[in-house]
């Protein structure tokens, strides 16, 4: 008798938990935790940043969509502007060794210096572990996490899915919108969009 009651409950519990086990980051849910090595040698643990807003930026220095943001200076501007306001900005490099965008720590440090990039840290993710954890599809895909550790934005950097530098000035930047609205205590109006760009170069 006991078995017959317990079984359905257990199965129901497993069914409830299953999505948590396989699911990647989803808007409105807790951001999956990770620990990674930054290009500057430091160890970064996402959950150590609870209490702050965190931006995740998927990066590949050979991707023309990323080039549009960096060569226009837009990404650096965003990094500077938001880290100045206490936001933790993590650039994530999920290209596998041998693939476009794969860099060593020192190559990434050179790139950051050359481009005058201002992330809090650039995280090396050659196994694609963090990328898969967030189901990152493209560079530059952007994720915004609130101080409670909840994903409040996941998707494209802006509403102009092109490689044209001229499209940067007129674009609506979804990261700005999400951070501004959340910091003002408002609801994030556009919490998810299709992330555009180059596919993340995971190992096959």
């Amino acid at each position, binding site marked *: 008798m006991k078995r017959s009651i317990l079984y359905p409950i257990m199965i129901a519990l497993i069914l409830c938990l299953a999505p948590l086990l396989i699911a990647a980051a989803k808007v409105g849910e807790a951001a999956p935790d990770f620990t990674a090595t930054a290009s500057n040698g430091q160890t970064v643990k996402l959950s150590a940043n609870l209490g702050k807003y965190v931006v995740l930026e998927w990066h590949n220095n050979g991707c023309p969509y990323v080039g549009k943001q960096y060569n226009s200076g837009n990404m650096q501007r965003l990094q500077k502007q938001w880290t100045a306001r206490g936001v933790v900005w993590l650039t994530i490099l999920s290209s596998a060794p041998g693939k476009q965008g794969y860099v060593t720590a020192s190559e990434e440090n050179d790139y950051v210096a050359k481009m005058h990039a201002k992330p809090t840290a650039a995280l090396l993710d050659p196994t694609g572990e963090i990328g*898969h954890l967030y189901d990152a*599809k493209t560079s530059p895909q952007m994720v915004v996490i609130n101080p409670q550790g909840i994903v409040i934005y996941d998707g494209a950097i802006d509403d102009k899915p*092109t*490689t044209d530098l001229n499209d940067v000035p007129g674009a609506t930047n979804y990261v700005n919108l999400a951070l501004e609205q959340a910091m003002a205590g408002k609801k994030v109006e556009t919490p998810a969009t299709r*992330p555009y760009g180059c*596919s*993340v170069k995971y190992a096959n």
Partner: protein
Amino acid sequence: MRRRNSKPAAIALGLASLLCGANAGATEAPIPHGTIEIIAQNESIEPGRDFNLGLHFQLEKGWHIYWANPGDSGEPPRVEWKMPKGVTAEEIEWPTPHRLGTSAIVDYGYEDAVTLIVPMRTETILAAQQTAQIGVQVKVLVCREMCIPGKAQVSLTLPIKSQTAAPNSKTAALFAAARKSLPQHAPKDWKFSVDDTISSFVLSGNLGHQTTRAIFFPLNESQIDNAAPQDFAPTAAGFRLTLRKSQQLLKPIARLKGVLMLSDDRAYWIEVPVSKPGAGQSNSGANVPPKHLLEEGKTT
């Protein structure tokens, strides 16, 4: 990003058009790892009659371009027409795409070669001219492991004649192949429905016969998870296909629109209302075969 010599090319084209007059402009131009060519189905244009142009992309092995919905990454080719008064271009007729990519990221597009047919409308005022020069600027993203954006300008000049235009024998094979690769209207007696479960859309099709395969290509972005396996189950008279929802889909959708590919590579445009989750009764005619499909289905 450095523009791949587009400026000198543009200046050369501009000079050429000044020097050579109306016939200037090449029908073929390079794009990254390939070429684009503008082709006409007929030898001439008859004012008031519709006609077809084609954009033929020839790519190096392994390189691809994208469908109207590119899937997880990439972007579709974008066209900007330059035409005489009295000619207007319709939407591109997109051939059935292929699923491209690895397990984590799936795109929709075309490898090797593809011809995009573009129907053109004409008005009778065109009769006042002898020829019509039609140009197009194409922005296209060409990808293999990496992606390279390209821009090309091609144009062609067709004589305007009052009699019925004769088909161009040189382009006939390309147009025939392109037509064959277009999805068809789904037969009227086929019935489709879509159930909205929490995590998936379940697309059921009653075709009146069995099928060994069904693949769905969503026309709209961020509805289904492109990379998720599409769970196919044959039924006595059709199939059931479970499509995992996209992570970016936060609101219910009214319809699922796209291309359905069945056995033998036959593909069809379908547009199916989505039944509300839990609601047993129909919401304004689920199961009704799709109407106005090509009109709505082609545009994004």
